[in-house]
C-alpha cells in the first residue's frame, strides 16, 4: 500500500454555478431555467443532500460581448449573488453559500455589511470569492467608472479585504449588555477608520461576528501576483489546475510554499479546482457521454465564435464541420470583451491547431473540442472515487468546485452515485459534523482572530 502524504485527507465538494458560458448546456430537453428560483433551490438542496461544503455563485458585471455585440450563444442572465444566497439560506440548513464579488466596483462599507448580513442570516455559512477587474469596458456600468491598472487591482483588493476584516471585527464578542440597561454595551462597537492609497473611510459596523467569525475568503488568481494574493489572504483557492494530476500537485505544492513564505501554516488553504464530472456505469459509456456533452457545449456556432477569437476576425457563416479557416490570424487589441485576452502569438496557436487537425483528420469544431480546456473527470463512480481518493491523499487537491453541465439536475449523478463510493473509501463525510462553512472546510479561525 502506498504511503500517502495525507492519509486522513477528506475530499470537499463545492458547486460553482457559472451561468454565463458554453459549458452549461441549454439545448437539452432536461435543461431548466437559468433564473427561476426553483432551479437554484433544486440545485442547492441536491448539493446539501450530497453533503457538499458550498454552493458558489459566479458574477460578471457586464453582459458578455463578442465583436462589439452581445454574445448570444451561451446561457446568460443570473441573479445578484448575495441577494440570491440570502434567499437560499432560508431553504437550506448546512451548506456554505459563497458569493463572487468584485473589489474594483464595490466599496468596503457596503459590501462588508452585505456579506456579514448573509453570514449572520445563515448562521455562519457565508463565503466571498474575491475577484478584481482591470478594464474600462466593465467600468462603463458604474458610477465609479474607469478601471484600475492590472497591478493596482490587487493593491485595492488587499486593502479592501483589510477594511472588510476590520468591519467584521468591529463588535466585541461580549457586545451584549449584561444588565439590560442598553441594547448593546456602549463601548462594544469600534468604528473603522482607514486611510490608504485606495480608501479614506470612516465606518460604523452594524453587525457582530457570525458563528464562523468571518465569511470564508475564496480566490481564483493564477498569475504569480494572484497566487501571492491568495497566500496572503485566501482560505480557499478556486484554481484551474484540476484535470491533470501532475499539474494539480505542482500547483498545490506551489501554494503550500507561498503560504509558508506568507507566514501561514502550509495547510491553511483549501485547494478546490473547478471541474466537470461526467459519470456513467462503464468507462465506454462515460466516454461516449462526455463526447455527446462536448458536442452540445461546443455547437457549430460556438465553435466558430471560439475560433474567431483565435483568428481575430468574425467567422460567422463558415462551416464549423469543415476544415480550419485558410487565412492567417490577425492581432486584436484586448478590450474586456470575452475572449479578449493577451494571446501569446495567434500565429503559433493557429499553427498548432492546423497540425492537430491535419494529423487527426479533424473538422474545425472537432479541433476546438480537442484543443479546448481539459475540463475534468469522466468515468464510473468507482473509478472516479478511486482516483479522487488518490489525489486528495497525495495532496494534489483538497476537493473540487464542480460546475454542473445541466441546470438544475446536473448534480444528481454525483450525489447519488459518486458520493457513496467516496464514503465507502473513507474520504468523504457521511454527515455534516459542523454547522458553519469554516467547519465544513476544516479551516482555522479568521486570520485576524488567531
Amino acid at each position, binding site marked *: 500500500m502506498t504511503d500517502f502524504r495525507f492519509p486522513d485527507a477528506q475530499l470537499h465538494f463545492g458547486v460553482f454555478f457559472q451561468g454565463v458560458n458554453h459549458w452549461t448546456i441549454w439545448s437539452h430537453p432536461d435543461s431548466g431555467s437559468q433564473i*427561476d428560483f426553483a432551479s437554484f433551490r433544486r440545485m442547492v438542496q441536491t448539493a446539501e443532500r450530497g453533503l457538499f461544503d458550498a454552493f458558489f455563485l459566479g458574477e460578471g458585471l457586464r453582459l458578455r460581448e463578442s465583436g462589439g455585440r452581445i454574445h448570444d450563444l451561451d446561457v446568460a442572465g443570473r*441573479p445578484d449573488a448575495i441577494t440570491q444566497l*440570502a434567499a437560499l439560506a*432560508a431553504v437550506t440548513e448546512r451548506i456554505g453559500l459563497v458569493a463572487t464579488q468584485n473589489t474594483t466596483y464595490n466599496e468596503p*462599507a457596503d459590501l462588508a455589511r452585505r456579506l456579514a448580513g448573509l453570514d449572520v442570516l445563515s448562521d455562519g455559512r457565508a463565503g466571498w470569492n474575491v475577484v478584481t477587474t482591470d478594464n474600462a469596458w466593465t467600468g462603463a456600468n458604474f458610477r465609479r467608472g474607469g478601471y484600475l491598472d492590472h497591478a493596482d487591482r490587487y493593491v485595492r483588493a488587499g486593502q479592501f479585504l483589510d477594511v472588510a476584516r476590520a468591519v467584521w471585527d468591529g463588535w466585541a464578542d461580549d457586545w451584549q449588555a449584561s444588565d439590560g440597561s442598553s*441594547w448593546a454595551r456602549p463601548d462594544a*462597537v469600534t468604528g473603522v477608520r482607514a486611510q490608504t492609497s485606495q480608501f479614506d473611510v470612516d*465606518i460604523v459596523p452594524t453587525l457582530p461576528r457570525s458563528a464562523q467569525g468571518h465569511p470564508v475568503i475564496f480566490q481564483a488568481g493564477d498569475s504569480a501576483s494572484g497566487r501571492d494574493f491568495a497566500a496572503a489572504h485566501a482560505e480557499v483557492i478556486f484554481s484551474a489546475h484540476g484535470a491533470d494530476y501532475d499539474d494539480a500537485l505542482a500547483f498545490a505544492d506551489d501554494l503550500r510554499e507561498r503560504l509558508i513564505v506568507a507566514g501561514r501554516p502550509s495547510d491553511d488553504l483549501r485547494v478546490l479546482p473547478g471541474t466537470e464530472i461526467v459519470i456513467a456505469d462503464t468507462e465506454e459509456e462515460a466516454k461516449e457521454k462526455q463526447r455527446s456533452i462536448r458536442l452540445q457545449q461546443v455547437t457549430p456556432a460556438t465553435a466558430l465564435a471560439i475560433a474567431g477569437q483565435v483568428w481575430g476576425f468574425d467567422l460567422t457563416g463558415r462551416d464549423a464541420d469543415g476544415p480550419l479557416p485558410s487565412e492567417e490570424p490577425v492581432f486584436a487589441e484586448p478590450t474586456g470583451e470575452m475572449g479578449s485576452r493577451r494571446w501569446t502569438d495567434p500565429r503559433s496557436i493557429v499553427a498548432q491547431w492546423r497540425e492537430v487537425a491535419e494529423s487527426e483528420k479533424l473538422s474545425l469544431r472537432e479541433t476546438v473540442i480537442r484543443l479546448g480546456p481539459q475540463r475534468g473527470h469522466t468515468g464510473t463512480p468507482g473509478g472516479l472515487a478511486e482516483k479522487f481518493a488518490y489525489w486528495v491523499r497525495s495532496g494534489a487537491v483538497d476537493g473540487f468546485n464542480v460546475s454542473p453541465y445541466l441546470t438544475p439536475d446536473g448534480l444528481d449523478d454525483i450525489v447519488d452515485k459518486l458520493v457513496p463510493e467516496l464514503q465507502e473509501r473513507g474520504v468523504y463525510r457521511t454527515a455534516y459534523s459542523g454547522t458553519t462553512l469554516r467547519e465544513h472546510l476544516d479551516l482555522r479561525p479568521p486570520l485576524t482572530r488567531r
Partner: protein
Amino acid sequence: MTVLHLAVELDGDGAHPAAWRRSQHGPAELLTGRRTAQVARRAENAGFTLATFDDALTPPAAGPVGRIGAVERAAFAAPQTSAIGLAPVVATTYTEPFHLASQVASLDHASLGRAGWVVAAAAEPAAAWGRPPVTGDALAREARDAVAVARDLFDSWGDDAAIRDVATGRYLDRAQLHYVDFVGETYSVKGPAIVPRPPQGHVVVIAPDGLVPSPDVALVTSPQRVAGALTFLELDVALDTDISAEERLAALDAHTSWPATGRPRHVGSAAGLVEWLTELAGQVDGVRLHPLVLDEDLPELSARVLPALFEARIATRPRDGASLRSTLGLVRPANRFEVVS
C-alpha cells in the same frame, strides 16, 4: 367600496427606539434569520399586503445599533412567504445604481414577483463611502437618477430574451437586449443588466411623495391623493393590549423618548384604529403602519384590526402566489425599448 392596501414596517423590534425592551427575545436574536423569517410570516399571516424593511448603512441615533441589510432580510423572507410583498429600503446617494438594480430585480425573481423598493430619503454617511458629502437638491437628483437607471435596466431585457433557438445555436435574442446608455449629471451607465427582466416587469417603486418622478406608491403623512401613483398614508400605531396604549408608550418613553416622525399617530384601541382606517379608505389608497413594538402590536393588529377590516370588506388579504403589482392593482409596465408600432 375602495380597497385599502395594508402595509407594515418590520424593521428592528418596532418603531419606538426602546421597543427592544418589550420584545420577547434578547438583542442577539434580532440579528438572526429565524427572527427575520418569523416576523415576515406573522405579517403575512395577519393579512398584510406589503412588508417594508427600513435600513441605513450606519446605526440610528437611538435604538438598536445592530441591523442586517434590508435587501438580505427581504431575500431571506422571500422563500418563507408566498403572498406578502417585500420591500427593502435601498439607498441611492452613494450606492452603485447598477448593483441596486441587480439586487431588487433578484429579489423579484426569488420572491416570484413580490418585490418592492422603498427609495431612501434619509441622508447617508458620506464618510463611510469615502465620498464628498452630497447635500440639498443633489440628494433628490441622485434618487431620481437611480430610479431612472433601475427602470432602464429592468427593461434592458425583453421578457422572452432567452429564446433557446437550437437551429441557430442562439440562447439569447439580441433584438431583446438593450444598451440603456443612461447619462446623468454625475455618471453614466451602459447596460444591459446582468439580471433578466424581473417577473413584475418593474419592481414596485415606493418613495416619499415628491422625491422621484412617478413612483408606483407615494408615501404621504397627511391624507391626500398623489396623481399617477397609489398613495399610502404613513401611520404610527400603538394599541391597547392588557395594558393601555398610553401606558405602554409612557413606559417606553421613560427610557428613550419617541422622536417626532412626522407621521400621524394612533395611540389607543384596536376598534379606534379600525374606525380611523375605515374613514381613510375613501381618502387614500393604502396605509403603512409603523407598530410601536412588533411583538406586542403585531398580534393585536392580527387579531383585532385586520380581521375587522376584512370582514367589512375595507381591505382584502393578498392571494398566495399573486404578484405585488397584481395585489395592488398596478399594471405590469410595458418595456420602454420595445415600442409597438
